[in-house]
């Protein structure tokens, strides 16, 4: 049951990316190009996602626990620290260079553009490296 619901969540998420154009790096780069060929439509996609999520989370968190698990796993940290800012800046740099963030890159795997097939393995290496370094730093 858990497996099926996670599969469904991934599928719905991926369809959202496909329909909104988030899975198209050219469109994402135009969204980021505020002073040039600015395409603001993705801002509405993000706002739409946030509006639905904010309302949904509020309802869900009224429940004592999730449907299939013992507890909600919410990020516990609240401090704004160096790794948060540094990591986000590095991520933003990579996103601006190519137009892929992690979800759209994975969703695009099956479309099999050669550069996607280069991007994704390198992204996995980056994620693993960051996880290892953060563990060493004890955070």
């Amino acid at each position, binding site marked *: 049951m*858990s497996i099926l*619901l*996670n*599969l*469904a*969540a*991934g*599928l719905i998420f991926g*369809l*959202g*990316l*496909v*329909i*909104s*154009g*988030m899975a198209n790096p*050219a469109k994402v*780069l135009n969204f980021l190009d*505020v*002073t*040039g060929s600015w395409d603001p439509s993705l801002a509405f996609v*993000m706002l739409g*996602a946030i*509006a*639905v*999520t904010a309302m*949904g*989370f509020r309802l869900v968190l009224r429940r004592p626990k999730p449907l*299939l*698990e013992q507890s909600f796993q919410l*990020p516990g*940290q609240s401090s*704004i620290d160096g*790794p*948060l800012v540094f*990591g*986000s*800046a*590095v*991520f*933003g*740099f*990579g996103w601006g260079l*190519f137009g*892929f*963030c*992690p979800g759209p*890159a*994975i969703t695009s795997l099956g*479309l099999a*553009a050669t550069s996607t097939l*280069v*991007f994704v393995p*390198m992204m996995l*290496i980056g*994620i*693993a490296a*960051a*996880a290892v370094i*953060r563990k060493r730093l004890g955070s």
Partner: protein
Amino acid sequence: MGGALIGVSAVLLHYSSGRIAGVSGIIRRLIVPSSDSKPELALAFIVGLIAAPFVWTAATGSAVVQSVSENLPLAAVAGLLVGFGAAFGGGCTSGHGVCGLSRLSKRSLVATIVFMSVAALTVFVSRHIIGGGA
């Protein structure tokens, strides 16, 4: 419409598993598993993501429109930066940008402002300064 679906997915995941739909975090749970990371659930989510364009094409009969740079060295560097940065900063567009902002997390607000500004600045420099206004 697409944005609402992303929200529905985030709520569904949170309602059923109690977890945050942050894609970089979900990938990390699969490739760097820990005692409570439930890699099999992370894998199911990722399979769903990968299946999405095929389901879309099967349902609508139209191909997914996508235009990706063919610059492979750029893809390699950008991939590494995106993966490292998102995992080091504790989230990407979905985890910080959608779920975090929905929860009014201050950390996520800072992260989202930082990565959106750096991404926009990167596009500005590469298109209008280096690229000569193309």
